[in-house]
């Protein structure tokens, strides 16, 4: 289908919310619980994700490390990766951008805001 989004967050509520709102809008959603899980899915899923949305603070492998790993993978070198941040994470945001994050969405966000963001990157 080629419209798949990988969503990475350790909070189950967020995973639920995001996969509902994105699949309602016609996108395929795969979720992962942390960086390690995400990297695993990114490398082993049959299709290449069109967009990856990841939280920053997660156990095992945090978002920034995940981004660094993904950018080393030629498959994901130019894939948009959007992080979830809060207002207070300005420095983290810059660190993530330097690591290769494409953009960000500030928590808390509405389903409409998320959808608008996804549309920016996935047709």
């Amino acid at each position, binding site marked *: 289908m080629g419209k798949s989004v990988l969503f990475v967050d350790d909070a189950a509520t967020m995973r639920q919310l995001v996969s509902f709102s994105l699949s309602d809008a016609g996108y395929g959603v795969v979720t992962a619980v942390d960086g390690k899980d995400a990297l695993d899915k990114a490398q082993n899923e049959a299709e290449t994700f069109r967009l990856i949305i990841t939280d920053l603070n997660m156990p095992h492998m945090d978002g920034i490390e995940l981004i660094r790993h993904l*950018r080393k993978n030629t498959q*994901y*070198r*130019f*894939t*948009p*990766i959007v992080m979830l941040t809060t207002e207070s994470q300005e420095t983290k*945001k*810059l660190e993530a*951008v*330097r690591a*290769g*994050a*494409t*953009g*960000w969405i500030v928590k808390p966000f509405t389903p409409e805001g998320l959808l608008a963001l996804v*549309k*920016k*990157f996935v047709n």
Partner: protein
Amino acid sequence: MARFDPQRLLALFKDESLEQLGELEHGLLRLETHPDDSSTLQGVFRNAHTIKGSAGSLGLTHISTLTHAMEELLDMMRQGDLLPEKGSITELLKCKDLLHEMVSGLGAEGPAFDEGRFAGHLSSIKALKSSGRIKLNTFEILIRPSPEVFLRGADPADFIRRMPQSVQVLQVQADDSQVPALSELDPTRCYTSWRIIVSTTMSAQDLLSHFEFLAVDGEVKINDSTSNNQPALAPCAGLSTPGSAQPLKAQSATIRVGLDKLDSLLNSVGEMLIAQSMIQQAIHKGGDEAVRSLRALSPHMQAACREVQERAMALRMLPVKEVFDRFDRLTRELSIAKGKQARLVLEGEDTELDKGMLDKISDPLVHLVRNAIDHGIESPEIRQTAGKPPEGTLTLKAYQLGDAVYIEVSDDGAGIDTNKLIKKATSLGLIEQGQQLSQDEALSLIFHPGFSTAEQVTDVSGRGVGMDVVKKNVEGLGGRVTVKSTLGQGTSITLKLPLTLAIIDGLLAQVGDQAFVIPVVSVVESLRPRKDEVHGMQEQGQVVDARGEVLPLVRLHNELNIIPKTKNPWEAIVVIVQSGQERCCLLVDDIIGQQQVVLKPLGSATPSINDISGGTILGDGQVALVLDIQGLVERARARQIHDAPQGADMGGQQ
């Protein structure tokens, strides 16, 4: 007063409204490409307003409701709360179509109009009205992404392609000058920067947030160009209509010049340089010989300078073709709209005119062509009854004669019925009952402002709509308008225009210690009257009997507050000047001579001064003011009429 006849009233309303609707449509179409044209907007508003008013008084509720809705929308455009863009114009045009059906169907059998469409348009207008209020902004977005942007998974082009819905992209320019040669190009790096012009209801802040992912490590700047009033950017369609150069700022105006003109200018400059070096050599000789040589060289230099001047001026000259070409389409569309058949013949399209002038006569010409088709050329049936071919001929002709260019707009239509003009003018109180007018005087009534602002103008089977504006515009350019018409055979209106706006032939006149320039085009003759040819009271209401013609005397020293050498006309000179059909005598001390002067505006610091149209610098460095002959003559005539009883008394005594 005729008996009240509702049937006749309805017929009159139909005629009038259909005409208004035609104008309304043209106005709307023009607005689409010229959204800044406030006078067109004003006209369109007036069209809707007129129909609404009449419909209301005739109890035609539906027509008045619909026109009222249109009027409200147009009013929002006037206030600047809504932009006359494609959506709103299209809706208004559709409303106009429905109105046309409603008006045409008046008095006919069967269903008057489509109720569904009627309600639909009302609600669309309502929607448009609520969409208004928010002003459209024009922004210039400058994007210089970080070279590493691709490595972050962001493609700047995506951000440009996927603008928010409320953003209309007017122009995108990519600057690829930083892209290196292929051998050195790193495809993972971004070398391009962009300049984008958009029109949107969003704020600059919101627009910036769309690009924040590019701004984080790159550069994104948003400039508000709404306030800069750059209409060239506002409508995209406007870019493709260079013919209407009016809204373009002078600073950005360019002109295409033929290479031959440029070459001949350079050639003349070369001659001037040769003359200059010869003068240099002559000076080195010293003494009497230098003077002799310089004297011999002076005419040479003069000729060279004149040639440079003429050829430089020629650069500003463009063929009238540039303006004439638009009339093909206008003629076709107008004649279809009016149910007429008209053929446009263009003559002398290669005649050249100053660019500035060309821009300014374009609107008056549109007016004249409209009038000719609207009022001049008859419907095919009437033409055939009159023994004319069903197709009317409209001729646009340009030619140069002396230092003036003439543009004639003539038709082989019905001509102007001067009797009707006189009747109309009498009823408007413009002329006295029973006043005798020559053919020319009667025809020139159409230039009277009263004629165009008066309602029911279309009852007169002549012209009248805005002819005063045409005349004012043309005279503002130092030109003249004349009209010739033969009833049943057609009308011809001639614009006489000076070749250029910037350089005029001036008659230098001395008053007291100051020199003034009188444009030679306005000068009829100059003479010293005999004492017995000056009549009237000292200091006021004086007239000069110049070769049998009694003309009001304007004492320039009084007008301009200067102490003259003499106050007696028989010891000074009177210059007879003419503006339009009217003449007067200007009293000056002396005539200094005639020379070409470069007309310079007095600048915005000096408000417009009565009697003065500009300034110039004379050969000796002295500044001379250029007299506004039109204003002087008009004021003199007005004063003369005011003083008429007194003048007549004096005349009786002598």
